[in-house]
């Protein structure tokens, strides 16, 4: 069985903060003051006039409540949300919507008010949903991928956003997730557990790709990708049927499966059985196998899934289950500056804050 987090000697503290709207995504805003911590929420309220909104909330660590500081209404529901920092410690929020537009919001470092907003409208960028948006470290460039099979690179040029279409498969391939690996390379994921490695120096198509057909009849979609800054040749992907796997560019035909179908025989159990919505490397968890820290070893990562599990998975170790909710956990974020704090959004209109000792 997976190790249950509450049975650990130092269990994490769990605080539930119910909301009155549906939470599409939640992210920590990079901390710019020692006292306040801010969280960005993408909300949806079907009964109001402007149903979708992006709000910055301040987190009161004593009372554990969230209070709204500023809000902005995108033209349609947010489908992907990322945060980063521009050079000069200016916090930045990037959001992609279901109608295909991309929006960039800059926040004020002092009072978390939204200062400026740039966008690329829907007709130009994507036809249909923006599946994923990713911001480069340092906030210079963005990659946006969509169901229509387009891969766009967007950058801030003065006071507007300019974009160029890096690849257009004309709908023959749909991409569902994306992540920057280095200033010139990024990874995208799609249907059939496929991963594509792109290099800006080799335009016109993929540089290398993986077609995940290790499980004969079961196939799925890659929902989320993460790349560790110290292991840029490996990318970690999570997707359908509880599958979490790592693809190392040096051994392209042998992906390492951390959790999911096909793992059960070795003795470790899969962390969850349904869609893994998000996967992030977890800097807080110390690797159990400290002897073997070769670069081919996959570092511990946290996942959240449709069947309500938030767990830390590691190669060849039992997954540690931190939360087991009766409803789906749709997104989570680990605070960069305090990796012991994790904030998640639940299907049933609430937010959970997890603090690990």
């Amino acid at each position, binding site marked *: 069985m997976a190790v249950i987090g509450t049975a650990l000697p130092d269990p994490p503290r769990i605080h539930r903060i119910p909301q009155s709207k*549906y939470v599409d995504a939640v992210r920590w805003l990079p901390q710019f003051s020692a006292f306040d911590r801010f969280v960005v929420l993408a909300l949806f309220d079907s009964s109001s006039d402007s149903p979708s909104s992006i709000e910055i909330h301040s987190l009161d660590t004593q009372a554990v409540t969230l209070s709204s500081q500023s809000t902005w209404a995108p033209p349609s529901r947010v489908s992907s949300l990322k945060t980063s920092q521009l050079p000069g410690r200016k916090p930045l929020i990037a959001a992609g919507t279901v109608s295909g537009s991309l929006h960039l919001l800059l926040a004020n470092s002092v009072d978390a008010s939204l200062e400026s907003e740039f966008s690329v409208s829907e007709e130009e960028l994507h036809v249909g949903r923006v599946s994923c948006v990713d911001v480069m470290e340092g906030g210079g460039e963005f990659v946006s991928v969509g169901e229509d099979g387009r891969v766009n690179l967007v950058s801030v040029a003065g006071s507007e956003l300019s974009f160029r279409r890096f690849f257009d498969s004309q709908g023959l*391939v749909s991409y569902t997730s994306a992540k920057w690996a280095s200033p010139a390379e990024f990874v995208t994921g799609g*249907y059939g557990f496929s991963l594509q490695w792109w290099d800006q120096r080799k335009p016109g198509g993929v540089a290398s790709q993986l077609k995940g057909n290790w499980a004969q009849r079961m196939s799925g979609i890659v929902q989320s990708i993460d790349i560790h800054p110290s292991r840029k040749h490996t990318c970690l992907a999570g997707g359908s049927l509880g599958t979490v796997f790592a693809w190392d560019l040096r051994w392209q035909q042998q992906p390492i499966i951390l959790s999911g179908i096909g793992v059960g025989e070795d003795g470790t159990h899969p962390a969850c059985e349904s869609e893994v919505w998000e996967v992030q490397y977890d800097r807080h968890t110390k690797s159990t196998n400290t002897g073997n820290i070769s670069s081919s070893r996959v570092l511990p990562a946290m996942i959240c899934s449709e069947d309500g599990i938030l767990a830390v998975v590691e190669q060849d170790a039992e997954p540690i289950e931190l939360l087991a909710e009766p409803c789906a956990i749709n997104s989570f974020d680990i605070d960069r500056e305090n990796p012991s704090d994790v904030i998640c959004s639940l*299907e049933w209109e609430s937010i959970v804050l997890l603090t690990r000792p």
Partner: protein
Amino acid sequence: MSDAQFRRIAYGSVSPFALLQSRRNSAVSLSKISSPYHVEWWEYVMEYSKDINSLLSDPKSLTSPAIEDPKAVLQKAEEPICLKAAWDVMEIFYADKQSQSWLPERLVDWLAAYNGLLSSTQATIHSQLISFQKELVTLQVIEDSPKYWEVLSAALAVGWLDVVVKMLRLHGSYQLDQIGNRETENGLVEAVAVLISKMPRLRPELQAGTLGECHRAKPDFIKAWEKWRAHITKLDCSAYWVRCDHDQTRKGLRNMLQIMLGNTNSLCTATCHWMELYIAHFLYIRPFTVGLESMYSLARKCMQLKPMTISHRLIQLLLGIIGDNTEVVLAECSRAFGPWMVAHAIELLASGSDQAETLLREEHYNLGGISIEELHRLVYAQVLSSDALTWQIAPIYLTSCIKQGMGLLEILLSKQPVQDVQILLKVIEICRLYELDSVSSNIMKIAGVYHWKHGRKGSGVFWLQQARDEVRLNRIAQQLFDFVGQSISDESFKQWEGLIELLGSESKTAGGLEFLHKYRDFKKSLKQVNDGKTTDAAQQAVESLISLMKNPSTPQQFWLPILYDSLKLLSCQERPLLNVSETNLLLNKLQELSMAKLRPDFIEADLPPQALGSVRLALATNLGRAIVEE
């Protein structure tokens, strides 16, 4: 109650409901012989009731102030809500088997918590207290105000002893400068206060801060009760009353003693609402539990003495419960509190008595063969399904309905919009949990066709593969090869490669990249032959034809189309292009094809009916000529 609050209650009640259902299922499967309602069953129901009760409290409960206001008569408590009041009263009567022996005291507590809700038009003791509290600030001499004594008697009548004692201690005779002159008066007030605080109560325990002496067993209680009454009578007959100067104090205190002795007139005058009179009866006249029938007749009597103008829904519910009328209770819940209440409270009602259980769980012909319990669950599930945020909870309720639940679940899942990929994935997950494979595959087929038609060919193919829709996949494979056969530009070919990758892995008919490359080369060379450009175009074409037919990755369904396309090659006038072995190979392939036609999963290619015949003829002719040549 706002929508968000209702949703929060709905979300929170899913787990307790599911837990109770699974416990019932395991209890039924374990004890097929005896009734599933053995001793521990009511404990499960009680746990369920407490879990749901905790959801109904307002989350914003007020924190008590650090310094207590000496003049604050009523403690600030959380705003009561009607739903919680209704749930509490049902829990008291149906679920809480342990406290059946001290039911009247439970009702006293209930009234204390919810008195404010009982009437908005008529006065209640609660409203009296609130308005008196406002006046209290302005009063100089409290004991002169007649309202003070009215409120005191009223609070005493419903058993709010802590409030009474607190108010008594506000009496002017306690003030330090007064104590000298008003010694007797003060003594009398204090005596009454002490008597009140020592009132015997038939209950196991009291909350901190409330007054009275608890007795668990009836004999102990009766003894203490007799003693207490004797003390009150003694005080009533004492000589000190004559020496009490303050008229109102004397009258007020003696009235309070009358209330404690159970004087019906005093009780009637002191209370406003019939429920308060009812509770007062239980406290001072008959503190023992009696059967529901006599409780009901007592209630009727009180209602006659204190008629109501408008009846509150809580009152109607309580009357239904005391009247032991399950149908009335259900009707009241449904009318006044909504489908959520009915769907969840039925569990409490069913555990109340065997008759109630039979009534609720037997199948009724006029309801379409389902039970009342199932009917209300289905109604609630419909309410949940109508909201985009709560439809995902509905399956839990639907699957507990044995007769019509699964059918409605399938309809619910099929109605969800598959355009949104998140919702599609959630629907498929629900199908997986409840093993609804056919529903899942239908929905995936619809999604696949939808994506294909809107230009997202990759995702369309993926969903069709997940649905194992061989028919459409074959049609797509056919379309694909037609397309590749026609346009040969490298640009578009590269784009199709991605799609072939996806198709190639699972569909047996697609053949894969290798075949596609060879097929493209073959088509290119055929085109060159048709254009008549180069002389060894024909030779090239033959070579690619042979390598195509030899290659194991060429799907069988394409053999005949390829051969049919190359008819021109085969019937070349000048000389046979294929040698004997090659022609034999092709003939063997044709033979294999006609054998394969007999198999059930063979897919016919879209060719004119004489295609096979003409190919065979052409090959035979070729063979003849080739043999002649050699």
